[in-house]
């Protein structure tokens, strides 16, 4: 009888140790899963930002009236109309900047699209397009 009682106690202790060990290991494994999920979400956000910037840049390049296109899209401009900004619901800020570069026989129209992530100084995505216009 005493021997059977010892066996039951040993089994209970083993199960307790196994539960403890399992909890510790699962804490580490769940941490890894969470980190992977976070990385996946960052990659998704980066892809979305890149797609949005790329799409906007292509539409601006194809458009005859970039300002009207931006105004339709909800962008607001600075006084001189060279910088347009749009903040979306997720906190990302898209900024479009137009620059003119005079060249010997024409003008280079440069369009910069930057997607800024909230709380980060460096742009999340930065793309540039150029269009040369000859001067008669």
């Amino acid at each position: 009888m005493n021997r059977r009682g010892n066996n039951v106690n040993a089994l209970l202790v083993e199960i307790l140790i196994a539960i403890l060990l399992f909890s510790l290991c699962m804490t580490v494994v769940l941490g890894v899963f969470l980190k992977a999920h976070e990385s996946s979400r960052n990659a998704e956000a980066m892809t979305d930002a890149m797609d949005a910037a790329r799409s906007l840049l292509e539409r601006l390049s194809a458009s005859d009236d970039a300002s009207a296109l931006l105004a339709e899209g909800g962008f607001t401009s600075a006084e001189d109309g060279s910088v347009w900004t749009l903040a979306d619901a997720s906190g990302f800020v898209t900024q479009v900047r137009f620059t003119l570069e005079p060249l010997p026989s024409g003008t280079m129209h440069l369009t910069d699209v930057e997607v800024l992530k909230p709380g980060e100084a460096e742009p999340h995505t930065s793309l540039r397009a150029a269009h040369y216009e000859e001067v008669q």
Partner: protein
Amino acid sequence: MDKREFHFGPGAATLMVVVVVVIMSIIALLTVLSVRSDVRLTERAAELYSLRREAQIAAEYDLARLDAAVCGVRAGAGDDGAYRGAVQAVLPDGYTLEGDIISWQTQAGDGGALDCAVRLEPLAGDHRLTWVRHRYTSGDQFDAE
């Protein structure tokens, strides 16, 4: 009647925990590897697009350089034939004139190139040069065999 009892012997619980933890660890490792591949693919796609954009910008500057050369000879040309001859003489290195089409290649950072071509418009036209081709050719060589 032979009645067998089920015994949960010593070590069985630990063994089960070890098996479950190993399986979960393998799944976690595979998840991390998959996510890392996704991140790398996203970064590579962004990098490739940026490189091609840079090549397009470089092509526009190449056009500006060509236009500056064309602009310099346009005023002194009497007719279209003389104009084409004068343009041929002042073409920068890497540009070729065939008929009224001027073509060149702009290298992209990913090993590919932009195959560019513009039409040399007649003297009477409103413009000097008009884009006719702006095509990306990949640097990757694909062997079907």
